[in-house]
Structure formats: C-alpha cells, structure tokens
C-alpha cells in the first residue's frame, strides 16, 4: 500500500522532510505499526519516533489513535500547542 505521509513540528525537523511517499510492508496495518516501522527504518526515524507515546496522527484529515488503520493520507506530529 502506497502512503503519503506528512510530518509536522519537531517530527518534521527530526525526519528532515515535510513529507514522503512510502510503501511499507504488508504487516504494517495500524498507526502504531507505521510509527514502529519508521523508528526502525533509519536513524532519523529512530530520532523522530523514539517515544511513540508522544506521537499523534491524522488519517484522511481525521485525528485518530495509535490503533487506527492506516490510510492513503497520513499526518504524524507531536501533541498540538495552539491557542
């Protein structure tokens, strides 16, 4: 499955890119799987996703939890701090 991922704030900085198109293995089915896979993939992933509990996600524009299924358009980011 080909995914378009975008990164924000310090996740973006640590990944070194604002987004990428990836094709993870078939056993990556949830956000938690994806975060784990990215953390194991390379050094920048290890840095960005060292603490999976601090990562938030949106799939197709909707905020979801770590057990949510992945989708075509995913955003990964730290807890929000607006207002």
């Amino acid at each position, binding site marked *: 499955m080909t995914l378009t991922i975008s990164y*924000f704030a310090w996740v973006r900085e640590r990944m070194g890119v604002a987004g990428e198109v990836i094709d993870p293995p078939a056993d990556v089915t949830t956000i938690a799987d994806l975060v784990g896979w990215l953390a194991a993939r390379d050094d920048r992933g290890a840095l960005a996703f060292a603490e999976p509990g601090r990562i938030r996600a949106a799939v197709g524009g909707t905020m979801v939890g770590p057990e949510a299924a992945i989708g075509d358009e995913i955003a990964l980011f730290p807890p*929000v*701090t607006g*207002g």
Partner: protein
Amino acid sequence: MIRVAVQTDAINVAAELDIHDAGGHGASAIFVGRVRGDDGLAELFLEHHPALTEAGLAELAHVAADRWSLSALTLVHRVGGMATGETIVLVLASSAHRAEALAATEFLIDRLKTDVMLWKRETFADGRVAWVEPRDGDHGRAERWD
C-alpha cells in the same frame, strides 16, 4: 454567522469586532491571546497544517454553535512568525444571553489548545529554539467539556 480564519497577517481585534458586531447582539464574550515575552522570548512561530488547521477550527466552531445558542461566532488564529505582544488568537462569541456567550468562548479557547493542528516554536533572545510542550492543565480544562 460563523467566521473562521487562519492567517499569517496580524489580527486586527477592533476590525474583527466591527465585522462580528454588525447585528447588535445582546452579549458578546471575547478572548484575546497574545505572545508573552516574560522569559526572554524573541519570536513565536506557529506551524500549521495547510488544510486541517482551518478545518479543525471550523469543526470546533460548529460544535459550539450546536451546543450554545449563538447569534455570531468568530474564530481567528494567526500562524507563522510573530513578535511578543502580538495577537495569536481571537475568539468572539455573541448571544442574546451572557452565560451562552461566556461558556462558548471558554469552550473554544480550551479546545483550541488540544484539538487543532497547531504547534508553537519559541525562539529566545539568547538564540535558543524550543517547541512548546503541552501543559498538563490544558487537557484537564479541555476535558471539562466532554
């Protein structure tokens, strides 16, 4: 009338008040959040999502409009770089009744901090740069409305 905006331009509170105020509502509650410079902050940068930030604000606005009897609602959030003293966020809620306007304003400012894709990065006078961490209290305040 619901108005939601995400903008890099400075927020003009008086002008927003004029637009919002056209109807002569009974009660308006307003919240203005500004960049505080009390610990050597030089610049605040607000990162946002090009589509989802405004969508998140619009969703919050509609939740508030469903929950309280409002005659007008304005929600403006600034993004990009801003100096101390500048306005980050403006919430304006009007109703025939003060309790509705006040509650909607408080709800919106609380939920803005936990539900909308916005990230604050601080640059200090000594050159240090840090992403702001959410404060424990923010989630508690946001959850009061669940």
